[in-house]
């Protein structure tokens, strides 16, 4: 008898508690998905904290962006969308849009204009690579090297092509275990003109040329699969040079005093930004759009650059980029877009990769396994 009572009471309590929680979620909470670590921290400081203060809405961080698109698809199929806003790389955002997982955005109507009145779509310009994508930052995949492992008298490496120069720079290299960027670098450093890279990469001979170039360093290469790994490889002295994201290298050099140098030449620009999951209820959608409007305005994007060395995606934010929030150093020279760093750069051709990714990935994996 007592047991039954306890059981009943417990179930009742649980039930009301659950209802309260789900109600609470509807009213004053939103779940924002991002990459975690220093990146989420920069968003928290630049967007989430001021927004929560202004509106009283609680923002919950979910560090699931690395499998974001797969989870969005699973949620979409289950018809239960638990995320309100997702941070994705541009290539994944295009995929999400293609799959109908993300909502198409009217950039001018939904986002704030620049302070001088320039419309959002003009302010973001070419960065809007998909109808579903709201650009946030420009980051780059570039190279870091160990300054203490440099041979005596050798000139410091300048960029991607020095990776292929085993004579001047002996030692292991760390590269990302996927074809994107590596194939382009191989061709560019084999003398292919920048304009021709993707045309050549489309052909069988072009792919063979790229693999042949990569073959020259294959035995000296350690392939990483997460960006943290690439920094770790450098920090442990496992490799002399490694490709990584410029923000991670910045954090290692400036915040952790690692003996790394940056080699910017032929850095690959990439974009990261928001997508809104398709299928949100009207109320949640309205709240998400309100947050987006706030978090992607000119000042907010410039603010984020105080915490992490990624360039804001709005043209109007660039002049507002100031000093690092805690270290007080000027952030501009550490931005991938700084003229001193951007002598030779290339932009990942998203549409091209959307087509060729599966094909080249199979070939790349087969090549790795040989």
């Amino acid at each position, binding site marked *: 008898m007592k047991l039954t009572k306890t059981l009943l009471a417990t179930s009742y309590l649980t039930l009301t508690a659950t209802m309260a929680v789900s109600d609470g979620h509807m009213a004053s909470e939103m779940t924002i998905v991002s990459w975690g670590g220093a990146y989420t921290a920069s968003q928290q400081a630049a967007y989430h904290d001021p927004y929560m203060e202004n509106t009283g809405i609680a923002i919950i961080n979910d560090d699931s962006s*690395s499998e974001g698109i*797969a989870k969005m698809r699973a949620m979409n199929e289950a018809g239960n969308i638990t995320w309100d806003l997702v941070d994705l790389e541009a290539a994944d955002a295009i995929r999400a849009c*293609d799959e109908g997982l993300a909502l198409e955005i009217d950039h001018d109507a939904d986002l704030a204009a620049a302070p001088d009145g320039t419309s959002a779509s003009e302010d973001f310009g070419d960065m809007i690579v998909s109808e579903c994508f709201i650009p946030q930052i420009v980051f780059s995949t570039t190279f870091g090297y160990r300054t203490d492992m440099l041979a005596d008298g050798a000139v410091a490496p300048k960029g991607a092509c020095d990776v292929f120069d085993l004579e001047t720079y002996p030692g*292991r290299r760390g590269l990302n*275990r996927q074809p994107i960027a590596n194939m382009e670098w191989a061709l560019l450093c084999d003398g292919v003109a920048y304009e021709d890279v993707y045309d050549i990469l489309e052909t069988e001979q072009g792919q063979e040329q790229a693999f042949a170039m990569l073959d020259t360093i294959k035995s000296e290469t350690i*392939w990483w699969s997460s960006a943290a790994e690439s920094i770790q490889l450098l920090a442990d002295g496992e490799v002399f040079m490694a490709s990584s994201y410029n923000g991670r290298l910045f954090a290692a050099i400036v915040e952790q005093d690692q003996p790394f140098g940056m080699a910017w030449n032929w850095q690959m620009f990439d974009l990261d930004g928001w997508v809104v999951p398709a299928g949100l209820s009207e109320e949640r959608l309205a709240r998400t759009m309100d947050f987006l409007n706030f978090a992607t305005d000119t000042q907010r994007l410039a603010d984020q650059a105080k915490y992490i060395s990624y360039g804001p995606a709005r043209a109007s934010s660039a002049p507002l980029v100031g000093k690092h929030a805690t270290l007080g150093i000027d952030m501009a020279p550490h931005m991938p877009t700084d003229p001193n760093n951007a002598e030779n750069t290339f932009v990942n051709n998203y*549409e091209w990769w959307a*087509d060729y990714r599966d094909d080249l990935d199979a*070939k790349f994996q*087969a090549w790795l396994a040989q």
Partner: protein
Amino acid sequence: MTDTSTQPSGPVLAADGTPLKRSLNRALRRQKIRALMLIAPLLLFILITFIWPIAQMLFRSVENQIVSDVLPSTVASLADWDGAEGTTPGDETFYALTQDLMAAVVRKDHTRLGSRLNYETTGISSLFRKSGRKVDDMGEVYTDQFVGLDDAWEDPATWVALMADLRWVAAQSEWDGEGDEPAFRLNADAANALPKTAAAYQTFATTIQIEDNDSPTEEEPWNTVYLALYADLSADASTQVDGAQSELIATAAAEVGSFETEDLRASFVDIDEDWDTHDTWSTIKTYSPDLTNGYFLNAVDLQKTPDGSEWRPENEQIYIELFWRTLLMSFAITASCILLGYPVAWLLANLPMRSANILMILVLLPFWTSLLVRTSAWKVLLQDQGVINSLLVWIGVIADDNRLALINNATGTIIAMTHILLPFMILPLYSVMKTIPPTYLRAAKSLGATNWTAFWRVYFPQSVPGIGAGSILVFILAIGYYITPEIVGGTKGVFISNRIAYHISSSLNWGLAAALGSILLALVLLFYWLYDKIVGIDNVKLGG
């Protein structure tokens, strides 16, 4: 005794007079139901949360409805195309494609189809994306000319009067604007007189009702509807309809002969010349059935062609090698677990309680540590500048410029996974060894056996069930592992499960992932069956 002899031969009765057999059956059945009720919660739980999702996932490996869902009439018209090398389908197919694609673009699922077909033929993804952007202009030339003939053609009301069923018109006018508008219904006469137009209009009306919550009474039809009207009228200039629109149709029918026309094939080729290639069309045709074995063929390095299957080019073959590697390395891991685990389990079973307990804690400790921590710890130990290599260099066993490659290859995976899976070998072994009485060994020795003979002939055979149980556990766990190989395996030490994870989370090719997973599951079952044949599953003991 006398009682039974006087009883007439008949069924034995229970106390309440029913035949004993029936009453016994009833009692047994009641017991069975009660037993079933007791396990019902668990059974349902397993069915709903485990078996059903797995079955659903595995079904994706053959499911391929998307092509016929998105391009229904194109698929139908492709049946007439023989798919011969060097040819492309006829104009009829391009007409069907225009109709299908227009609706697909409004439903926003043409890009999904594009990504699906891009798994098979590179370039289709952008082909659909590009074509989707321009398809709404196709047939515009007919719209302009019909409207040029009579402005009534751009009036939605004209179309509703021509196409809609009267009952729908009535229901629509009674609809109060709350909830969904009544679903559009076609008028049978119009469908007979203008079959293509009716089909196109039906698609238009249904799609805008569902997708945009718009009403056919307010929206001008898509260009594809005018395109269909032109096709109907030019095929049969004597087309007639009854009612108010008869004159409109008659005028148009008389004029269409002089209409400026649009070559749809040319328009598509203009968007992208891939529409003019055999490859594109052959892929759509090959993948048009609702079920496909294409994913399974891909999963074993084959590709589906119109006449069956063929090997992929050598520079794209990866999966068979990965399956082999997964199996061989899982065997190697199981073998090293036996080698390392057996002595430890023996010690555990034979040491005094106190020391055995401490040893047991050491065995269990890895269980309480995060998998990622353990794997990362191996990274620190095994890498080039890591603890083991530095120690060996310091002792002078190896030269500084010739450090051992212990990580980012198969060696790294085997070492790390052996460590991680070791408890799964030791625990079953221990529980079996605990039940082997030490007196057997003493008896063997007292009868003159050497230590080795006593172990090999007396002790070891009794511990085989433990080895069996441990091996099955370790092997099955190893074959599906992916985190550890991903971190320490480099390029030569990754498993098939790493590719499955890639297809689930990055390429979104869930069909291929499901096919690879099904093959992996089949392999595990095959090994289980083999094991049962050779060792016998009855000989496996997980506990005393």
